[in-house]
């Protein structure tokens, strides 16, 4: 299987929030993860125990912890809101 790698969505603000995503490909320490339908690359160097199919928190291109489904959903919801916040903020004028 191959996934379209997208990165643009989180371009502006990425440093603090970690994004939950599912590991859909894994080769040595290089993974492809899927967050809300966006796939991007992430490394497992900081989370050597990560396995294919795991839900993980991804931060700045690295997996930092495992999460459960419920937590992942809540965070996805929040990210959608915060992104929305960012977009509306861009539109606010003077």
């Amino acid at each position, binding site marked *: 299987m191959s996934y379209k790698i997208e*990165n643009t969505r*989180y*371009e*502006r*603000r*990425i*440093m*603090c*929030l*970690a994004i939950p995503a599912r590991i859909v490909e894994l080769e040595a320490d290089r993974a492809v993860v899927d967050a809300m339908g966006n796939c*991007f*690359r992430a*490394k497992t*160097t*900081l*989370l*050597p125990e990560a396995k294919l199919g795991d839900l993980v*928190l991804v*931060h*700045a*291109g*690295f997996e*930092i*912890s*495992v*999460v*459960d489904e*419920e*937590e992942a959903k*809540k*965070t996805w*919801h*929040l990210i959608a*809101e*915060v992104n929305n*916040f*960012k977009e*509306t*903020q*861009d539109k*606010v*004028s*003077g």
Partner: protein
Amino acid sequence: MLERIYKAQLLCDTACKTLGRQINIMEVCGTHTVSIFRNGIRSTLPKRLKLLSGPGCPVCVTDTGFIDTVLQLAGRDDCLIATYGDMIRVPGKGGSLETKQPSDNVRIVLSSEDALQLARDNPQKTVVFVAVGFETTAPATAVAVKEAAAGSVDNFCILSGHKLVVPAMRALLAEKNHNIDAFLCPGHVSVIIGYGAFAGIVERFSRPCVVAGFEPMQIIEGLGEICRQLAEGIAELKSIYTAVVTEQGNTTAQKIIDECFEPADGCWRGLGRIEKSALKLKDGFSQFDALKRFDITETQGEDISGCRCGEVLCGLIDPPECDLFGESCTPQAPVGPCMVSSEGACAAWFKYGRGRKVKRKN
């Protein structure tokens, strides 16, 4: 669900009544700041419970001197600057990366790995990775540095602006703002350092420290837990973000930070120099240190005139008390970093209109 909210509200009410004064709780995480506004959490709290937005966004706390060093390097023909998108609009004294430099010298990257790849792809240039962020981000930088060392990617280096959250919290309590009653501690930083890292603050300063996640229920319950402690006159360390935060944190990540970095004094916008609050590369990796490679000494920058971000970050004033707020400083034309970053306190206040109302009344 509603019951849980009521319960937390009751705890907050009780604390306000028991203490009989205003209670100040500081959140030290930009994502908390946004979530609090976005979900209208302030309106559900008693009037005498005040939420302060602390130095929780690495963008906001980056000193002007650091930005000026980045600008200086961006002006060199032999350098290529790789930075997280967050930093691109942050003003130093001489402008921001967006306004000052020819953009082909500056590349936005999503991870330290991308920056390293950029170095491999551009052997004729020296790639300088603008390494900012708290403990959550530092391990990613460390991995890239280790890989550069192992793979002899000699044209890669970093300008470390990495900062540590706990020393800043200590400095706040010890010097800047004695009125902070408790901290709502950051979630994702705690994934790395573990909630145990805040134990020292609870012990030394007797202030409740509660780690919470970002969704509204977590925040409200976190505040409820803090208020329970305040009402009972106790200070404890607690994590209610049990889904991802453990007491020890991610020890693999901590080890990698320790291999590459050591604590050093660091300059924070608004808070000034704080002892052992920044990370600098260890001697074994000094060839990857941009300051050493280009023989630059970083100087503490001057604050931008009129901008009161420093006081905002210490919880001493609310953004609308700054004269520039909403006037010459808006998210479109930010004067200070707290208006640049969408997680900055000024941007959040502006977006949600609270501040503008206050302004008109004045």
